[in-house]
């Protein structure tokens, strides 16, 4: 009933418009190599404060999963992944292009993405309320467990474990700048009035991702072009059957790991490709233009992207950098992410879930007939995009608090972002640490106040204890999985 209500609400002209804009921008971002969904969401975030919160989240969500659709286009056509999650798609997708079968590859990527996206939206509707109801019983110790669990993501957000941890910790230190949330004591302000108010998330994100990326692009030069033919679009016979089956398998492989923080779409895409190769009757042909090699990873990365909305909405845990910024958007609109969201803002949650069904349909329509247009959009050079993005970043950093101090912050973090990218340091863990640092500190100190300073509180409460044990297990598991993932893929994930 709630879902029908949400779907009807989503079908209002306003929400349909935001959903369409989100999907369009997402596809565009996915198509343009170098401009990732996290950066774009960060750049758009301040602008959305002037829109209705439901419409804004519909738009930002559409942008996120839309980018997963669009990312395959350049992977298949020009062997350049628009998204890190589409790196694996290059392996067989570009080979299919060389054989004049790019139309088929694009078709199966779009259909696979649609199957995965719709499956993800259905599970989000079914699982979300149950998880949220249970999570309502959480107190500060459980939150400490939960936040530690989500911090396992630091491991996968970087090609180097140490670098990820260091960046995450640096983010947590930066989160302590300003008034202490419990006592009001000012910290790390160095006598600067602006710093006493703390560092605002938006200028930090806009600087690191937006300005930093443009500076890097300026240094590296203009992006490339596509001038080829798509060939026949719909696969037939054996290819069609294999493509659809691989899409379903990819969806299953991508969805459930996608619920775990740190299991990024890029990793699940790799896992899906790996599994597909193992179950195939002709594993030796993988890498030479096999349709399953496109369908499975594309379905997997879309399924993971959709799965990420469940922990985000029910527990307030982001499983990727983009979702971390959507989490920041929820906080910015005064919507408390976590279990209470399902009860206190029922209309909002179900409208957003409803929009996922509509958004996936829109993306299918956008991606199949318009694929030629998207391919040509990768022609837009940075000399046009760069100045516009920089000016938007400026407004973006200024507008949340209407203070020029935040513009200086964005500029400084832009330089930091540029240097970090240049030297191979990951940005996402820094943002994650910055975002979760505050909540972690409050929950930790509240828990210790409850127990009179004893750490035993984390073991005496079963849920907290289970979450901490899960953190250790998943950390070990993730490190093991990462050993099987090619280093280049992780480096690519860092870059985008």
């Amino acid at each position: 009933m709630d879902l029908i209500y949400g779907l009807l609400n989503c079908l209002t002209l306003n929400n349909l418009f935001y959903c369409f804009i989100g999907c369009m921008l997402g596809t565009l971002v996915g198509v343009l190599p170098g401009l990732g969904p996290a950066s774009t969401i960060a750049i758009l975030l301040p602008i959305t404060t002037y829109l209705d919160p439901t419409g804004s989240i519909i738009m930002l969500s559409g942008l996120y999963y839309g980018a997963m659709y669009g990312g395959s286009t350049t992977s298949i056509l020009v062997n350049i992944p628009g998204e890190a999650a589409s790196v694996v798609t290059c392996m067989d997708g570009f080979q299919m292009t060389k054989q004049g079968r790019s139309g088929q590859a694009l078709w199966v990527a779009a259909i696979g993405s649609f199957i995965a996206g719709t499956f993800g939206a259905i599970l989000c509707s079914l699982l979300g309320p149950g998880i949220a109801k249970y999570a309502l019983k959480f107190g500060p110790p459980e939150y400490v467990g939960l936040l530690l669990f989500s911090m396992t993501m630091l491991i996968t957000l970087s090609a180097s474990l140490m670098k990820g941890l260091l960046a995450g910790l640096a983010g947590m230190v930066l989160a302590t700048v300003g008034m202490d949330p419990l006592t009001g004591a000012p910290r790390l302000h160095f006598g600067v009035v602006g710093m006493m108010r703390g560092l605002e998330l938006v200028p930090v994100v806009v600087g690191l991702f937006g300005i930093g990326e443009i500076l890097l692009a300026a240094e590296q030069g203009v992006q490339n072009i596509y001038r080829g033919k798509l060939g026949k679009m719909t696969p037939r016979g054996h290819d069609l059957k294999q493509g659809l089956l691989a899409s379903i398998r990819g969806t299953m492989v991508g969805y459930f790991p996608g619920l775990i923080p740190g299991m990024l779409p890029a990793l699940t895409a790799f896992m899906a490709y790996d599994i597909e190769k193992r179950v195939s009757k002709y594993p030796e042909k993988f890498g030479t233009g096999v349709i399953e090699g496109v369908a499975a990873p594309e379905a997997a990365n879309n399924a993971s992207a959709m799965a990420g909305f469940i922990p985000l909405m029910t527990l307030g845990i982001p499983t990727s950098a983009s979702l971390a910024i959507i989490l920041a958007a929820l906080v910015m609109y005064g919507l408390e992410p976590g279990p209470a969201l399902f009860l206190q803002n029922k209309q909002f949650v179900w409208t957003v879930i409803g929009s996922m069904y509509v958004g996936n349909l829109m993306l299918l329509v956008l991606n199949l007939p318009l694929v030629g247009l998207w391919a040509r959009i990768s022609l837009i050079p940075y000399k046009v995009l760069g100045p516009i993005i920089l000016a938007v970043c400026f407004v973006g950093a200024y507008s949340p608090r209407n203070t020029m101090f935040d513009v200086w912050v964005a500029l400084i973090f832009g330089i930091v972002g540029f240097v970090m990218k240049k030297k191979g340091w990951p940005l996402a863990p820094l943002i994650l640490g910055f975002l979760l640092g505050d909540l972690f500190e409050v929950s930790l100190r509240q828990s210790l106040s409850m127990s009179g300073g004893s750490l035993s509180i984390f073991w005496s409460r079963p849920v907290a204890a289970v979450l901490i044990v899960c953190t250790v297990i998943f950390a070990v598991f993730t490190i093991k999985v990462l050993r099987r993932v090619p280093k280049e893929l992780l480096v690519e994930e860092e870059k985008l």
Partner: protein
Amino acid sequence: MKTLLMEVFVAVFLGMISISEGIRLVIMKKLYKFDIFGPGFYNIGLGAVLTIISLAYFVSERKKALGAGGKAQASQPVGKSEYRKVISMVSVLIIYIILMYLTGYLFSTFVFFLMINRIAGFRSWLSIAGVTVLMTAAFYLLFVTWMGIIFPRGLLFNF
């Protein structure tokens, strides 16, 4: 080696700042007795972990470098002109912020686009002027007229 030392220095420096701020807050603890843990200990803990991991990172990277025949991390060679472009962009952004204080949004945005379009790669001044006017107008209409964002008023004049 130089890059590694720099990276470790920044991380340790950040850790040390956090620790020293934590110690300052612990000394002032009497101000907030109701909180057992206090903000100071959290900062000390964070700073300590950051410093320890930084040192561990240094040791592991050093070992790797020695294992690879004593060669330290080779940084990518970057041409002077490429860095010049980045430095120019940053300088334009600084000028933009300062101009905003002095002349308001419209004039400063016009000057910003004029300079940044040139740096970004437009060659002909005619096309730069055309693109700049279009971009400035679009930004003004979108952010000031439509969204109603109030930008700082210029000290010298306000456009």
